[in-house]
């Protein structure tokens, strides 16, 4: 009898736990990074605003911890779980196998081992093209400093897109890169920014998540760009614009789909056209002509009239990557491993 009661009790618990539809988020950094994780959390808040409960766990390390966190979210009654960094790829798929009724969405990865896993990412490189155009026009030293995180295709794609666009308006451009091997390490990012400025860069941009680099640029009096989020208030004079990742519409759409039972496996890669990549207001210091030019380019990239990777494109060794008159396909972009001509140094191998 006692046994029966406890079973009924547990049953009741599990039913009440599953009663409410819940969405969970796993973040790689703190929600206060004012960059990557901050933007994902803005997306989460939009889900809450749509009337769906959405919780999060921040600063989840890659490695053994991430799988436990994802599993705990699945176990504690979350029906849809967004894992928002590339290092959660295998753990997400591992947990998805054991929770077929829970939906999983992994950002910036490529593995969908189970029908309840989707992947999604944004075409950040389209924003990089705009930054490259501005940088090529604004630089006096013809040297662009770039703080990079990990040598994965997503980051290399951004470096290449930026360099190609800068070369188009300024053939003498050189891109100097410092790899910090972290997504979020304000100390390292600041050091890297200073080192690049010391090497003659008068434009600083970064593929890392904190505001450290733009703050260093502001102090040194060089131009900079915000990453992932509008960082204007951290460097009001120095920032020319920011690439904004706007995850909110996607998160709301997918959460509602999961709640209403219309969710299906997808591989999403949205850009300027869909609004997943957006640009912060342009700094008037650019001059109204340049602002108009860039706004036109932004429209053309969104409509497909312009493309970030239009041939001819050569790699550092002079091998042809994309022929004249054609554009790079998603296969080449997804596996991009080499720098284009004009980037200094080697991809860490």
């Amino acid at each position, binding site marked *: 009898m006692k046994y029966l009661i406890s079973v009924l009790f547990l049953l009741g618990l599990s039913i009440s736990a599953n009663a409410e539809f819940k969405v969970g988020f796993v973040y790689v950094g703190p929600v206060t990074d004012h960059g990557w994780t901050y933007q994902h959390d803005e997306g989460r808040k939009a889900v809450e605003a749509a009337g769906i409960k959405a919780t999060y766990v921040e600063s989840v390390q890659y490695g053994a911890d991430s799988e436990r966190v994802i599993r705990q979210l699945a176990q504690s009654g979350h029906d849809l779980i967004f894992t928002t960094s590339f290092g959660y790829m295998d753990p997400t798929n591992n947990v998805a196998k054991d929770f077929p009724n829970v939906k999983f969405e992994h950002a910036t990865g490529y593995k969908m081992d189970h029908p309840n896993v989707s992947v999604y990412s944004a075409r950040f490189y389209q924003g990089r093209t705009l930054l490259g155009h501005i940088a090529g026009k604004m630089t006096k030293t013809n040297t662009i400093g770039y703080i990079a995180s990990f040598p994965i295709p997503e980051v290399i794609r951004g470096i290449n897109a930026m360099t190609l666009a800068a070369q188009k308006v300024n053939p003498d451009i050189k891109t100097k890169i410092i790899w910090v091997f972290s997504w979020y390490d304000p100390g390292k990012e600041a050091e890297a920014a200073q080192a690049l400025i010391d090497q003659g860069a008068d434009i600083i941009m970064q593929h890392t998540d904190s505001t450290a680099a733009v703050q260093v640029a502001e102090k040194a009096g060089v131009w900079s760009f915000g990453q992932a989020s509008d960082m204007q208030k951290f460097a009001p004079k120095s920032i020319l614009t920011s690439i904004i990742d706007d995850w909110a519409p996607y998160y709301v759409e997918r959460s509602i789909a999961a709640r209403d039972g219309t969710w299906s496996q997808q591989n999403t890669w949205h850009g300027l056209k869909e609004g997943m990549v957006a640009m912060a207001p342009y700094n008037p210091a650019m001059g109204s002509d340049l602002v108009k030019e860039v706004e036109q380019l932004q429209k053309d990239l969104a409509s497909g009239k312009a493309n970030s990777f239009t041939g001819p494109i050569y790699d550092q060794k002079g091998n042809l990557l994309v022929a004249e008159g054609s554009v790079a396909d998603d296969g080449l972009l997804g596996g991009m*491993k080499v720098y284009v001509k004009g980037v200094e140094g080697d991809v860490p191998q």
Partner: protein
Amino acid sequence: MEVQLIKIEKRNDVSRSIFLLTPILAIFLTLFGGGIIFYALGFNPLEALKFFFITPISDLYGLSELLLKATPLCLIAIGLSFCFKSNNWNIGAEGQLIFGGIVGGGVALLFYNHDGFYVLPIIILSGAVGGMVFAMIPAILKTFFNTNEILVSLMLVYVAKLLLDYLVVGPWSNPEGFNFPETRQFSASARMPILFDGLRIHAGIFITLVTVFLSWLILYKTYLGFQIKVSGLSLKTANYAGYKGKIMIIIVFMISGACAGIAGVGEITGPIGQLHRNISPDYGFTAIIVAFLGRLNPVGIIFASLIVALTYLGAETAQIFLQIPKYTGQVFQGMILFFLLASDYLLFFKIKFLGLKKNDI
């Protein structure tokens, strides 16, 4: 102007039972301090503490995760206790863990797609040797060149981290992995056997338990253990008694490094299954807290590792259910150590107020 004079006196009559009980006092003070912090953050302290310390281990999966997390902490802390007992300050267990992981992981990659019962033991052994060799660097430098082992072992952590970075980004990165900084997933023969279906707790826990028993045997039942303790209490006495102090330094570092190396291998062949840059969330440093909280005693260290492991899990559940910032876990670890050191101080020293005196200055 008058000032209060304070005199600090050493106590000579510290009882052993109180010495062993202070960690428990420290834990209670931490719970109390934690409650105050939760209250200040606007949460119901009792509810928050419940989500922090009870919810994470209220089911089988949670218990398995607790043991999974405690396994490397306990193993490293046991190794460190040999060093700390003999006054050798090995602060670089994190580096020894990583280097052991690198060597063990390298062997695992060598045996990629290779079956055989001998694969895993070879990996574990090579990880132990890796950690051991890496720990011998500060030991040998200390014995022959009189360098400071705290600095050398600490700085070697960065050497190990950078070496791991280099390997997973470059030569060992997964050829099919789109340049992501990680190796291939190891083959099944190179993975720790899972003890229960659906849980992540693996055979590594037996290695830890055997090590705990062996270290108890060595420390309390052998001549070597006696030598280690005597040199910790007084190096001069040890030398006078004819113990070979230099060899002892190298031996305790080797034991400590081997334990850390095995812990590293346990992580990569257990829950992780590959090498990448984040094979350890600073287990090597957290184990220092564990070693002291456990009073450098094998049984104490078992309990200490469970408690510290719980602060990791609790921080996650507290965030999932109450959205309490995750860094409270680290705050709790810091508070435990703070209260332990503070109560130790008051335990060993008497503070005497000598009354008000005229200040001439």
